[in-house]
């Protein structure tokens, strides 16, 4: 059965590019438009990996990570940040919130696939 990845980003084109890259490798991708939508969708379907942006309306990525980590079934699910933010300060906040890794945009499809495979196989 195909593994499911939740991509959370307020940019439609970015979500499409993530879905395009991961669908091609056989992953099923669920899209969410912001942290709030991402949390709702993560609660509705237990996914294998969450890939989230940081700066989004309604709920940002760090808040989403903290909210997911407070749910018993998301304590061990890998969560990767995919964002334009790259400062050490925000990376440290991400790590403290429970992020598994940090990817700075733009992403290269092969490198994204490589990291996803390393994290969830």
């Amino acid at each position, binding site marked *: 059965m195909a593994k499911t990845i939740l991509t959370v980003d307020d940019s439609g084109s970015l979500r499409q590019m993530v879905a395009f890259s991961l669908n091609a490798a056989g992953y099923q991708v669920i899209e969410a438009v912001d942290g709030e939508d991402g949390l709702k969708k993560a609660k509705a379907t237990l996914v294998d990996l969450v890939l989230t942006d940081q700066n989004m309306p309604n709920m940002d990525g760090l808040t989403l990570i903290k909210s997911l980590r407070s749910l018993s079934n998301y304590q061990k699910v890998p969560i990767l940040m995919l964002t334009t933010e790259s400062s050490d300060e925000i990376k440290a906040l991400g*790590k403290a919130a429970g992020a598994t*890794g940090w990817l700075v945009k*733009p*992403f290269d499809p092969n490198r994204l696939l490589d990291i996803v495979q390393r*994290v969830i196989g």
Partner: protein
Amino acid sequence: MASQTIPMEELQTLLVSLGAWGEEHLEHVETDIDRANVLLREAIAMLVQGFMAINRASQTQQALLLNLSVSEHLSQAEISEVAMHSRQIESEVNRIVTGLQFEDMTNQLLTRALHRVGGLKTLLLSMAEQHEKLIPEHGSDDLAVVLQKMSESLNEKRASMHKDLKSSVNQQHMGAGDIELF
């Protein structure tokens, strides 16, 4: 001896003009940035749609070619050439996927620029509003108080703008970003 009279009316006129003129210019800047953002978003949506369609057609074509290469007993050189074109297409597709993400980053930059313009407009308008506090009968001490309040108000606005509008986009090229696993 030089006159000590403060040209209060001229000062009022200057503040009102500064606010009105500045607002007019900045409204045009806001409209243009907004329009550029909408056009950019629509153009990227069209490019993404076109890219997806071309990619689907190309994948179908590649599959057909591979089948043909078997059934038509193509030479090894021809089969290698088909495979080479497949790899080249895949590499170009990856480059396009990376490039199409620029809409997300430019959108963030344009949105921040719009907030900065909004901040500048508020600042100019708040300066212009102070003209009501300038009364022709005021002396230099009263003027000093009004100017002091103006400075304080501007500094407060400046501080809150710095806090709210930190740049989140530092990229200056479209090369793929760093990856770090914790």
